């Protein structure tokens, strides 16, 4: 909602026409509810980020350091030399517009500067001015412009209205990856101390304590014990997982959101129940206690620093391989960056399921396997006793997280798992799933509450597709494999499609999992009554 600006007499004279000036001549208007609060100085100090200062996005004066312009220009120069992809992306766009209407933020806000092509152009115009001959000579005619404070504010505003979801890049004939341009743009703002609190806080916590919320070892342990109590109530089985155990075969790493938030905790209960049933020789770590990596939303170097704990802990504990929980950007980092940042993990073995003997060759290099791959393999080999009827109260659809789908190409495993643990599964329309999936609208550290309007706008295209299957098939559960999805889609559903819940797949697995020695289950993991029982199904496929 915009601020009230009209006086009573003016209310009757509403001009519906929007200004038709060229984008360069349309100054940025920074609006409340569209951005996250600035970071706290102590969080930036913790990790040694530069140019820490007080500022507010809506203020005229951002108290920028005196040499801010030089810092940005040099920052661009350094990154052009360092990242060939960035240099190419600055040069090759022909402005065909194929990406323009593919961005969920553009679709939801209707703001042309949220078209990926134009979002890139905000930075590209500065690149042209300072790094190309044509731009230096012809200026605006060649699409170049001076870097001014207003231009910087514009880049800041719109680069924190991009979730690096990469949907636009799927449609770009040149394969320009706007996510990488946004990453560089955000790195530049980071050089000037213009970081978001919602990102800087988790980064500092991760650096000091190992996880976003800054949970200390005893808190992590007691949080999990609390889940174990609930599991015992449900199943009559007391589970005793281990923490920081040296010599375990597998190290399990998951986003810390699964440890405290609703509905994330139900996903974590799912992991605990599955691993117990398998008798898996695994351990939790209170040090590598975060799979997520908000450093990824600040700079490449910070992401690398925060990621290093995973291999370090695997080495310290002497495990053979690493199993990872349900998370989005965590998997993009693990899949595409971890190996080159902090590898080679030659002290680990290629992941091999101790239950089925399957060797996960796809993780030969990173030595880390996704829980959905692991679970799908178990089901495929008939190793789980499942009663999908326990999920009969759920009509499920699956939201492909941007990072697991476009970032690592995982489409089938989660669907295979869902279809085996649920009897009612419905796909959303083709142009909203798999590699064309719509973002939840709150990724890359934009999942704060103060920017709720931005989140609702960005989340509308996804919600619109959910609404369709909700109306057509009565879908009431949106399954996904991402902690940020679990946290933020709940709000999005609440606003756009009331009556649709959000769940991690491991929660659905645990609902259906028939455990040895369990008492008759009357409730699901949320302590809600189970539907009337149907016949049990032993390791069978339902695909």
């Amino acid at each position, binding site marked *: *909602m*915009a*601020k*009230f*600006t*009209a006086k009573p007499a003016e*209310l009757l004279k*509403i001009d*519906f*026409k*929007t200004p*038709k000036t060229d984008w360069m001549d349309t100054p940025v208007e920074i*609006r409340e509810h569209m951005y996250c609060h600035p970071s706290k100085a102590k969080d930036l100090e913790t990790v040694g980020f530069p140019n820490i200062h007080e500022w507010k996005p809506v203020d005229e004066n951002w108290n920028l350091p005196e040499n801010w312009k030089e810092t940005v220009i040099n920052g661009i120069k350094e990154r052009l030399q360092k990242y060939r992809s960035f240099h190419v992306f600055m040069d090759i766009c022909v402005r065909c517009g194929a990406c*323009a*209407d593919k961005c969920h933020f*553009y*679709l*939801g*806000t*209707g*703001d*042309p500067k949220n*078209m990926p092509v134009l979002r890139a152009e905000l930075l590209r115009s500065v690149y042209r001015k300072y790094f190309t001959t044509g731009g230096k000579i012809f200026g605006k005619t060649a699409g170049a412009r001076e870097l001014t404070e207003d231009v910087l504010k514009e880049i800041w505003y719109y680069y924190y209205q991009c979730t690096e979801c990469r949907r636009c890049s799927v449609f770009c004939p040149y394969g320009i990856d706007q996510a990488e341009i946004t990453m560089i743009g955000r790195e530049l703002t980071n050089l000037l101390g213009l970081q978001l609190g919602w990102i800087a806080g988790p980064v500092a916590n991760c650096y000091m304590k190992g996880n976003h919320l800054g949970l200390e070892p005893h808190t992590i342990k*007691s*949080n999990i014990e*609390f889940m174990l109590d609930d599991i015992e109530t449900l199943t009559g089985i007391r589970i005793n997982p281990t923490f920081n155990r040296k010599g375990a075969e597998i190290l399990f790493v998951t986003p810390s959101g699964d440890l*405290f*938030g*609703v509905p994330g*905790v139900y996903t974590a209960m799912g992991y605990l129940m599955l691993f117990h049933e398998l008798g898996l020789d695994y351990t939790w770590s209170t040090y590598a206690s975060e799979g997520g990596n908000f450093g990824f939303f600040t700079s490449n170097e910070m992401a690398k620093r925060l990621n290093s704990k995973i291999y370090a802990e695997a080495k310290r504990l002497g495990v053979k391989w690493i199993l990872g929980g349900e998370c989005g950007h965590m998997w993009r980092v693990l899949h595409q960056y971890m190996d080159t940042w902090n590898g080679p993990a030659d002290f680990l073995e290629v992941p091999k399921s101790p239950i089925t003997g399957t060797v996960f060759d796809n993780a030969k290099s990173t030595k880390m396997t996704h829980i959905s791959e692991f679970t799908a393999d178990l089901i495929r080999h008939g190793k789980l006793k499942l009663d999908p009827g326990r999920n009969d109260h759920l009509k499920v659809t699956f939201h492909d997280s941007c990072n697991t789908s476009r970032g690592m190409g995982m489409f089938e495993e989660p669907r295979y798992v869902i279809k085996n643990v649920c009897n009612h599964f419905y796909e959303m*329309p083709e*142009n*909203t799933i798999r590699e064309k999936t719509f973002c939840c609208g709150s990724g890359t550290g934009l999942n704060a*509450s*103060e920017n*709720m*309007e931005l989140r*609702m*706008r960005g989340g*509308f*295209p996804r919600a*619109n*597709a959910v609404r*369709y299957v909700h109306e057509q098939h009565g879908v009431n559960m949106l399954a996904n494999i991402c902690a940020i999805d679990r*946290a933020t889609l*709940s*709000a999005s559903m*609440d*606003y*756009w499609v009331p009556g649709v819940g959000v769940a991690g797949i491991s929660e659905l697995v645990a609902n259906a999992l028939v455990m040895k020695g369990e008492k008759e289950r009357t409730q699901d993991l949320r302590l809600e009554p189970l539907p009337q029982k149907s016949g049990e199904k032993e390791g069978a496929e339902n695909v």
Partner: protein
Amino acid sequence: MNLNELLLKKRQTILKKWFDSVLETYPQDTANFLKRQKDQFANPVGSTIYNGMDSLLEELLNGGDTDKISTFLDNIIRIRAIQDFTPSQALAFVIQLKRVVREELINENKESQFADELLAFERRADDLMLLSFDIYMKCREKIYDLKANELRNMTSKLLERANLIFEAQYRKIDLEEVLQGNKLERGE
């Protein structure tokens, strides 16, 4: 022919002009896109608003089921309540329907012929406007609810674990027993 029949005949023209009046509230590039792209998943805002208006018009002219009207209005207002509009801008599209219909009648030179029916139609449009206020506020209140709920969801498990929630401390007490005790105390 009465006014309703005339409007039904001109329904597509009215819908087009009414939809155009909403599109004018968006930047030009966006308005073109919202109008051009017909796929409801590739263009969720445009298609939701268009379909909502189409159904609203249908309902206004053919029946007037308040529940249905509320749903169609809700679909449109839910979007505009979180976009860059003041409340008046977000809801002005409802009033625009009166202008569009009146202009059509003036074009046909039939404004005076249907004066009474037009008044009744405009009264129905005014009712829509009032209903829209309620829906708009409901949407805005929901946004604030969401902010509060997120905070609660993030911390409730931690608070419960720390035994700081009344409900958690006393959940083992049989509620029926307590109620029964209260009744006894009151001598019921």
